[in-house]
């Protein structure tokens, strides 16, 4: 099996690495500049969350090639404290009001598919997909 491209997040600088790798994959897939920028922003947001709230984790990329469409899947996973109330952080205005940026609702908007699983004390895994238009 092909090893998935992956960036470990340990320090703030790794966020840039994750963006870079994600953008390369997006370019390869043929995403336009606007979508590339959106994907990079989503990656930033996910990687920053790992860096800020879990300390360490990883961002994985997977190219999805289906018969009728192609896309980029981003998986951000950590073994941090987890999110106690997912519903709350998915609300508009939850993180933006504190000036923390787009927040998870922003990631959801930037991407086409978004899924989050979080266990208290066991970490968080977020999957997001953007399809090439």
């Amino acid at each position, binding site marked *: 099996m092909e090893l998935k491209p992956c960036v470990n997040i340990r320090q703030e600088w790794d966020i840039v690495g994750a963006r870079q790798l994600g953008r390369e994959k997006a370019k390869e897939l043929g995403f*336009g*500049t*606007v979508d590339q*920028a*959106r994907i*990079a*922003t989503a990656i930033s947001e996910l990687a920053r969350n790992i860096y800020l709230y879990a300390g360490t984790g990883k961002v994985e990329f997977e190219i999805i090639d289906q018969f009728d469409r192609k896309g980029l899947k981003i998986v951000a996973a950590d073994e941090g404290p987890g999110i106690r109330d997912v519903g709350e952080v998915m609300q*508009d*205005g939850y993180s*933006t009001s504190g000036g923390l*940026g*787009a927040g998870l*609702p*922003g990631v959801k*908007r*930037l991407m086409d598919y978004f899924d989050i699983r979080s266990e208290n004390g066991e970490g968080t895994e977020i999957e997001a997909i953007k399809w090439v*238009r």
Partner: protein
Amino acid sequence: MESVELDLENYRKLLKEYLLTNDETALYQAEQFSKLSVQHNISPEEIIHVHIEALKELYPGMIPREINDSLNFLLEAMISYGLALQEYQHLRERQSELESEISIAANMQKTLLSTVKPTIKGIDIGAISVPASHMSGDYYHFVADTDDTLGVAIADVIGKGIPAALSMSMIKYSMDSFPENQRQPSAILENLNRVVERNVDPGMFITMFYGLYDPKSETFSYASAGHEPGFYYHAKEDRFEEIEASGLVLGVQEHVNYEQSVSKIEKDDCIILLTDGVTECRIGDRFIERDEVLEVIKHYLHLPAQEAVEYVYRYFERLQDFHLKDDFTLIILKKEV
């Protein structure tokens, strides 16, 4: 996506025109384009993208790499603004949903708290209650009995908005559940106090005035639970007198005794009951004086009671630039014979 294509065409045309003529008309059209884009949820990064594409088509192969890269840089810098726009639009939709829910609740409150202004021989009744916002924390209620006595309640929740409105519904249903023979103002307040003390959050207080008019003895008995004092108008002497009644606001202590007083009512005399939305009417930074309130009331007192309260309300509404700061409730009882 097709609409964006169409927009690109239009944008390229406008841009070309502007680059050729440097004309204000093109700039005005750019403004129109901007407005249309906001209406269609088109985010700033998409406009920049359209701009880049338009430039490329207008000057094929002639855009310096640095300019092209710098525009891509700008596009990246606009991403968060695009997200903020979407969030704003989403929040605006949610706000209008909430507003319509609140207006449904407000209508329901109106139905729940509705009171019929009774026809009592010899008494002309006027009453108005206007909420400052959707839902009112003021309340008034008339109880007409077969023996022609008239009970009148006026209350104000300290605090505004929905919690205040919910408390008021409770007051109304408690009053409805009291036995028919128990119509003495002090007894009613004592019972309500118990209900409020048991059921309402300790931080919320309700002031209330309850009066009972008995046409046989031509007397008005009343008691007050910390409510804004009303006024008694002596027609013969053409003067106002504050209705003195003291009592603790509802809900502070479990057992409270309320003092009940009785006044004899003469022909043409008036009883004026109100909430602090009337007396604490604000003009700019200044609270209006009670004397000024009385002057306004007196000015309209010769009119039928309902007309009088409506004119007084309109006067204060205008004075506050048609924007009430507090719920406004005013009742006038006029003895006709």
